[in-house]
């Protein structure tokens, strides 16, 4: 989990598609991040998740409802500015090595959509000893990190209270 997902070349390309209106106007974002690791998923994966979403929607206000399991797996659905539907799921599966099991983002526009597997590009290596995957390619452009603390506490608060919360990212 060392390479930031925001620099993944497929994501960079997808962002260009959003900015260039190749898929029309953005109307939904769906993100799933599941990794092997310990601790609270919102704390571990949340900053990167918000970064990925914010870089697609831009800085917007959002009304969201979150849910969390006792061990910290977190989901939220929100209605962001311009009615953009944003959903995300973040969870950790205990074990080693610490790596992503799934990292996908889907950007839905008025005139098309893009699905990015944030773990690609990769080679599928299958041998008699088993199967493994080897990532390749240079990382894309680094997106400047912004503070996600307020958003993450709004998500945690919504999950705790069972109520929708307003926030910005």
């Amino acid at each position, binding site marked *: 989990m060392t390479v930031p997902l925001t620099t993944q070349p497929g994501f960079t390309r997808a962002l260009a598609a959003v900015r260039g209106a190749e898929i*029309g106007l953005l*109307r*939904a974002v*769906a993100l*799933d991040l*599941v990794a092997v690791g310990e601790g609270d998923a919102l704390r571990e994966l949340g900053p990167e998740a918000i970064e990925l979403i914010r870089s697609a929607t831009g800085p917007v206000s959002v*009304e969201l*409802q979150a*849910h*969390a*399991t*006792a*061990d910290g*797996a977190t*989901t*939220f*659905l*929100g*209605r962001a500015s311009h*009615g953009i*539907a944003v*959903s995300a*799921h973040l*969870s950790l*599966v*205990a074990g080693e090595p610490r790596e992503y*099991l*799934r990292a996908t983002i*889907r950007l*839905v*526009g*008025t*005139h*098309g*959509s893009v*699905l990015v597997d944030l773990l690609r590009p990769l080679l599928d290596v299958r041998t008699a000893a088993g199967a493994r995957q080897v990532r390749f390619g240079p990382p894309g452009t680094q997106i400047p990190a912004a503070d996600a603390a307020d958003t993450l506490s709004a998500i945690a608060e919504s999950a705790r209270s*069972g*109520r*929708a919360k307003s926030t910005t990212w």
Partner: protein
Amino acid sequence: MTEHESPLGVGIVGVGGIALSHMAALRAMTSAQLVAVCDVDAARATEVAHLQRCTGYGSLEELLADDEVEAVIVCTPNMTHEQLGVQVLRAGKHLLMEKPLALTSDGARTVAAEATARDLALAVGHSHRFSDQSLAIRELIDAGDIGTPRFVRIVMNGGWIWPGWQAWMLNPELSGGHSLHNGVHLVDLASWWMGEPATSVFSVGQHATSEALEIHDYLVMELGFASGGSAVCEISRGERPRSTGYLELTVVGTDGIAARTWDAEGVLAWTDAGLTAWSVTGSADRTFVRELEAFVAAARREADVVPPLSAAIHAVDIAVASEESLRAGRTIEIGAPA
């Protein structure tokens, strides 16, 4: 068919789009046989009856009076389900009701109570439960391979498939809105895989194709469960290009993930329609046969109905709450299921 040598006599009410799938399934079965059809469009009933080599009626009363009809599949628009369902059950026939069971929670319970009182099988056509992929996911969960499920994401996004402005699907009074019309399928799968009923719903909808639409052709429902688990159910008929067909089924458990990705069937095609994933013959074909076989087994008292009636009622409760969430813009809590 060990004990029952003769196939179950089935009548179909409403011979429009989905009836074709049921008729095709019946042709592939030996445990049940199509004996009659009826439709308010009597000419259509006659034409279909001729092609299917069965009896055609212009009214439900005539079909119900036919002694050869032991069980009925109701394939009429959603707003007719409650009334026709009660009528079929009162005539002493087993009932496979197309989804949703009814447009309201009370209506769903009224039909269910009628079936229980008369000791008749009442199944609801949550056909997605019977697909190869849905069953495979449930088997993985039951085997404990991914641990305890804590998140389900279901996406069924497509382009426009409905006819003109007068189509009943587009009128929330007649279809119940998109949550009831298609949303119930996703709600049923999510609750089934999670292994518990949902306790809250928060929905976001869009009129993607046209602002003038009264239904949300793009709909995302977030379900909350008592365990803290959750599900995101996304259904669209408003994608561009119109040829869009995107399917994703993901279950995240405490020990891992099972995901049926868009290209899971392994056939990618580049045509004038762009890049598309083609389905493989056989992967969906058995869905309606399985659904009907389960119904026949329930009518014969050899098995319980699938899905359980409580699940079909729950799907209506959640869908009704989802429509309320869309109107009110807030999370709606759901009471205990029936």
